């Protein structure tokens, strides 16, 4: 019974989202191959890496669905492309986002390429995001069902039409913030099976189909940092270097820290303040408002209105634009109106973008350098860049 079923390689993490993604693809009639990407397996003090359990969960689901299952080891590449990048950025005083890098370099590059070599027509992941057809200017982008891979006439070469990355229907879960840097080529060959679903429905579908991980606890943030937190993770790789904590207004030393690189703008916990009193002892907490990695000084303030915290402008670097329209805006230096997301799940804020700098309509709290600003036009993700200053 030789059929010409389309082949999808789906990245399965052992969580409910990617499990349901595989389930949906199977039901839609694809030949589905589940792949567990082994990116990290090292245990850290106080944090057992759950990779073996996650792998077993993924495989259990694959077996239940009756699909093939493989384990692809990207540990070396992940270390080079994601972990080292992350450590270097932290050392420079930035706060990078490893998940964005992981999608760009591992999932939608190495995994994508290997899947294609193995005969995949598409790859799929359990991200909350959508791929929409923008080839027809009269179509209202993102209408339900429109991006369905089965109805797009996808060929072995993926989708032939122009596609765009769009926010998930579940606005609460939307993960396009982490996906803005994935290549157009990969996107043309990507299916996000749960992009049009709400999370509670994903769980229900899992339960209805007897998937054992329907209510598995969600992994939060960077997979390998898990519960120990970024600071403890970094301490495994970056030496502790004591330095001063100063009040930004008075420059007085208020306490000491273990290394400016371990601190992030906006942080309020983990400050060892026991020196002289600051402006006035009113019991209000201090926030990190600035850090000088070169001098190893962390500046704090109680004043939430301090000028260091607020800004109307953000300069971006390593800009990755998804849409031709914005590219041309950049060339012509025409300011485009965009919606901006400065953190995963943060509310969208209005701004104009001139190709280098975001000008916000209202003042925003300054994000840490190294974080990403992701731009949208309506529900379409236009791309974004890394915040410099």
């Amino acid at each position, binding site marked *: 019974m*030789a059929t010409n079923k389309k*082949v999808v390689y789906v990245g399965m993490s052992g969580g409910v989202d990617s499990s349901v993604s595989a389930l949906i693809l199977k039901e839609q009639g694809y*030949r589905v191959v589940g792949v567990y990407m082994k990116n990290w397996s090292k245990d850290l003090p106080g944090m057992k890496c759950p990779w073996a359990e996650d792998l077993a969960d993924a*495989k259990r689901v694959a077996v239940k669905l009756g699909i*093939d*299952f493989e384990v692809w080891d990207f540990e070396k590449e992940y270390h080079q492309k994601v972990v080292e990048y992350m450590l270097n950025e932290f050392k420079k005083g930035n706060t990078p986002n490893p998940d964005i890098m992981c999608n760009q370099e591992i999932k939608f590059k190495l995994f994508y390429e290997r899947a294609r070599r193995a005969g995949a027509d598409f790859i799929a992941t359990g991200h909350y995001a959508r791929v929409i057809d923008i080839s027809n200017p009269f179509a209202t982008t993102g209408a339900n069902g429109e991006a369905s891979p089965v109805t797009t006439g996808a060929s072995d070469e993926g989708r032939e039409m122009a596609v765009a990355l769009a926010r998930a229907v579940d606005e609460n879960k939307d993960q396009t913030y982490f996906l803005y840097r994935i290549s157009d080529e990969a996107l043309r060959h990507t299916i996000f099976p749960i992009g049009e679903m709400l999370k509670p429905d994903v769980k229900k579908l899992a339960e209805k189909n007897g998937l054992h991980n329907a209510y598995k606890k969600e992994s939060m943030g960077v997979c390998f940092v898990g519960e120990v937190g970024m600071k403890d993770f970094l301490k495994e790789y970056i030496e502790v270097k004591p330095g001063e904590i100063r009040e930004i207004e008075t420059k007085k030393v208020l306490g000491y820290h273990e290394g400016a690189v371990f601190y992030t703008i906006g942080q309020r916990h983990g400050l060892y303040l026991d020196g002289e009193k600051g402006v006035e002892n009113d019991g209000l907490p201090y926030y990190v408002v600035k850090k000088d990695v070169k001098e190893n000084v962390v500046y704090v303030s109680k004043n939430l209105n301090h000028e260091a915290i607020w800004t109307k402008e953000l300069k971006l670097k390593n800009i990755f634009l998804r849409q031709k329209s914005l590219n041309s805006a950049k060339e012509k230096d025409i300011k485009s109106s965009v919606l901006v997301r400065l953190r995963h799940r943060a509310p969208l804020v209005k701004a104009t973008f001139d190709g280098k700098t975001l000008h916000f309509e209202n003042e925003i709290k300054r994000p840490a350098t190294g974080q990403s600003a992701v731009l949208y036009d309506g529900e379409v993700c236009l791309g974004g860049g890394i915040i410099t200053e």
Partner: protein
Amino acid sequence: MIYLDHAAATPVDKRVLEKMRPYFSDDFFNPSAPYLPAKKVASDYEAAKATIAHAIGAKASDLVITAGATEANNLAFSAASKKNSVLYLGTEHDSIRVVAKEHGGTAIKVLPNGLIDLNDLRNKITDETEMISVALANNELGTVQPLADVARLIREIKLDRLKRGIKRQLLFHSDASQALNLLDINVARLGVDLLTINSAKIYGPKGVGALYVSHGAKLKPLTLGGGQENGLRSGTENVPGVIGFAKAIEIAKEHINGNRKKYANLKKVFLDELKNYELINKKHSLDNFIVVCFNGLDAERLVFLLEEKGIYVATGAACAASKGVRSHVLKAIGLTDTQIAGSLRISLGETNDESQIKKAANIINETVKAEYQRIKNSHGNQ
């Protein structure tokens, strides 16, 4: 539920549990405390230890109680002081392999039938060798090793060393965790200096084991503190655990012959059903062990498929499966990667009867056929 993984864990026997029960909340005293009720607990503990010791032909004072076989194995290796001083069988459990490697140990080869290669052992023993560790029964294959032959060779070497005036010790250690309820174990007959035993595999509580230590062996303490267990493993005694272990070993000892007959029969019933498939190392294995290879299949998939049907089996060693590492044991006996990937370990036990085994074998047969069919279909689609 049909449980076919008794080599990984056994349920605690009800009689064992009953014996243990008073020692949790009633006779809870610290055996080292000075008042009379505590002295009674201390003497119950010593009596239980003596029961365990007698079951393997030893005295209570020869036993060091530990929290399981892994600890006992670690303690055993403390007898070997120098680097490159230990030899161990290539198919040993990780609690031997990892420790032996710390000592710069060298692995002894096994023959394709799973038995120790005595020639290789002879060649690898040098004047530096201080300890040789060979498990009585392997935990993945159930292979029973000819320890008497190893002991004979060791005696020969010792004699030769004495003739040449070499004073270095040569100790013989064996991990007998897997065999206590199926083989009649006697330390003198086995010729071992150190023997690891374990309660968890014989329907006793988990977290209790012991190391038999002959007089010649000088060990280093596993933990320091109050000096319990001859100063080798300080820490308040696990009284209910040891009481339970004693009862379990008593029952095991009593039923060795019955067990062997029962399991041999169940094994035959099982194999009749699965006769079309390749059996790994059936000749020299314990009566309750079956390792069957479904060539071309992924045994872990079978584990998950069978678990849905309430049948619990293992692929090689449980720890190997969960970490995605291929079994070093199956590799050591010369199996190919495909054979290793397709191998299931079935270990029978007290929870099984004939009708269960028939049913399980049937379901395994069907599941295997369905999986072969699935692979065929999936390839047809490409």
